[in-house]
């Protein structure tokens, strides 16, 4: 009896220990988030003591490494959004239509072959897309637009668009599949053709899920780094012309990291202020996408 209760005690102590250890593991992810926010904010505070947030968020010149120094983040934001939107223009309609094709039309066999092939595109490292843009897409574009510079936003848009394509298509496919069968059958029974059902019932029914897929993909494009660094160049400017070279927020962080800017200087702190802006932007997009998808799921439960 005494032995048995001793054993039980030991087993329960072990139980508590394991529970505590796994809880600690789970807390690491919370600590990571706190760490990210702490690092970005604490390093940015020093920067915002010198440069007013007003100047930072409304200035249209970004030349922190050259005299006369200017710290307006808008050109970087402009470059980032231009490439993300451009990539979205390529990936969003194409991805949605791929999802429609695979989930509504394609035979089971075709689906089994095509889907993993497309997912390969999502597994390709972004540095590879950058190299592809530089050595393949830009030369190809140059045969149509001869005056296109080596570094340009257009080829970055194209490769980032290809990169986020599988994400748009597989998330949209999930959304389309979630639309109940009776809605489709109802519309078919009323005499609608298959295409009319898809355009008039399935896509509108899946809209918030599809929207969430779009936003997630755009957030991914906003945070993308290596492809845009290699393809779009390093000239921060306010332009909407895709044939020019632009710089994104992430590409700027890479540029400073590559150089030998001394720690603790204002120039060095810029990467944290830019990082904070990038983080807030992607976080907002991700939260929005999650809200949309939660609402979407509730609708068909």
């Amino acid at each position, binding site marked *: 009896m005494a032995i048995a209760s001793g054993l039980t005690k030991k*087993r329960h102590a072990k139980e508590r220990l394991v529970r505590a250890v796994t809880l600690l593991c789970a807390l690491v992810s919370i600590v990571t988030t706190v760490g990210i926010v702490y690092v970005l904010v604490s390093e940015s505070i020093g920067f915002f003591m010198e440069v007013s947030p007003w100047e930072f968020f409304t200035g249209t010149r970004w030349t922190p490494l050259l005299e006369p120094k200017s710290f307006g983040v808008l050109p970087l934001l402009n470059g980032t959004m231009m490439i993300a939107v451009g990539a979205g223009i390529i990936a969003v309609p*194409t991805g949605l239509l*791929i999802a429609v094709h695979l989930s509504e039309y394609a035979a089971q066999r075709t689906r089994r072959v095509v889907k993993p092939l497309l997912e390969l595109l999502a597994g390709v490292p972004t540095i590879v897309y950058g190299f592809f843009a530089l050595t*393949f897409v830009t030369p190809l574009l140059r045969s149509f637009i001869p005056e296109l510079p080596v570094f340009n936003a257009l080829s970055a848009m194209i490769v980032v668009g290809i990169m986020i394509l599988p994400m748009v298509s597989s998330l949209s496919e999930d959304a389309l599949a979630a639309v109940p069968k009776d809605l489709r059958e109802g519309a078919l029974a009323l005499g609608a053709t298959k*295409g*009319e059902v898809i355009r008039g019932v399935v896509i509108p029914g899946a809209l918030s899920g599809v929207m969430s897929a779009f936003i997630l993909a755009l957030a991914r494009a906003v945070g993308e780094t290596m492809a845009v660094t290699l393809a779009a160049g390093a000239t921060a400017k306010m332009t909407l012309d895709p044939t020019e070279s632009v710089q994104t927020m992430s590409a700027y962080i*890479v540029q400073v990291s590559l150089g030998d800017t001394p720690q603790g200087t204002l120039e060095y702190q810029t990467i944290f202020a830019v990082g904070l802006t990038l983080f807030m932007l992607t976080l907002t997009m991700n939260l929005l996408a999650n809200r949309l998808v939660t609402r979407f799921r509730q609708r068909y439960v």
Partner: protein
Amino acid sequence: MSDKSLSTEHRGQPPIWRALKERLFLLVCLGSTGFGLLALAALTYGLVSEGWSVLSWDFITAFPSRFADKAGIYAALVGTLWLMVITAFFTVPLGVGTAIYLEEFAAKSRITRLIQVNITNLAGVPSIVYGLLGLAIFVRTMHLGRSLLAGALTMSLLILPVVITSAQEALRAVPHTYREASLAVGATRWETVRNHVLPQALPGMLTGIILGLSRAIGETAPLITIGALGYVAGLPRGPLDSFTVMPIQIYNWASMPQKEFHADAAGAILVLMAVLILFNGTAIYMRQVARKRLGS
């Protein structure tokens, strides 16, 4: 609402027009899939045509060089291997531990939900932001410098959400009857998890770990941010040594103006992609093993 738009849109349209529209829509859908496959084909063609010629045993076993035709990827390949091993060392226990806590121990409380939502959001944080975190915490505050250890810690945090989420899915796929049977004969929760749930969930977990690591193999930006770029003469001999990895080697060569180095970059990409395909192939195989074992 949709029904209304259907009836007004199509009232009075001749059947031929509707049939034509039907065809056209299918064609556009097919074309989109075609575009995706074409992009994959162009990518493959572009890389193979550029890099095939430099592939040789010497290319794999040679160190970087100032001369494009003598340069190789040995140091980068060894660096990538080191980085993966150390990253796995940190991320596997953390990821699996978190998943076990969330799936097997935690009550459905507000804190559990907070942890879950937090993991989802971490998955969406751009990799370069993890690089800034690594720079401030591991490189500077912990004085690890530009070492393998600093790189691996940064990478572990980066892939942690992927590993946690797939480990959770693997645990969830184990039927409840396994747990109930074990608990009914007097096992504690942890005994149940260790002896009955984990063995069943193992292949599924391995899939997630491999997918997470294959993401880390291709990541460049966070390593550049922590300062891992630069000429590295020898091989790392311990976790505190400086290092280079495949994507950084590729970046170095790709940003050279000479064409010959671009061929080296493409060759290195082909090797990297071969490693990734091997990894992903293993992951897919594991997933099938997991499905077969759990009979679904």
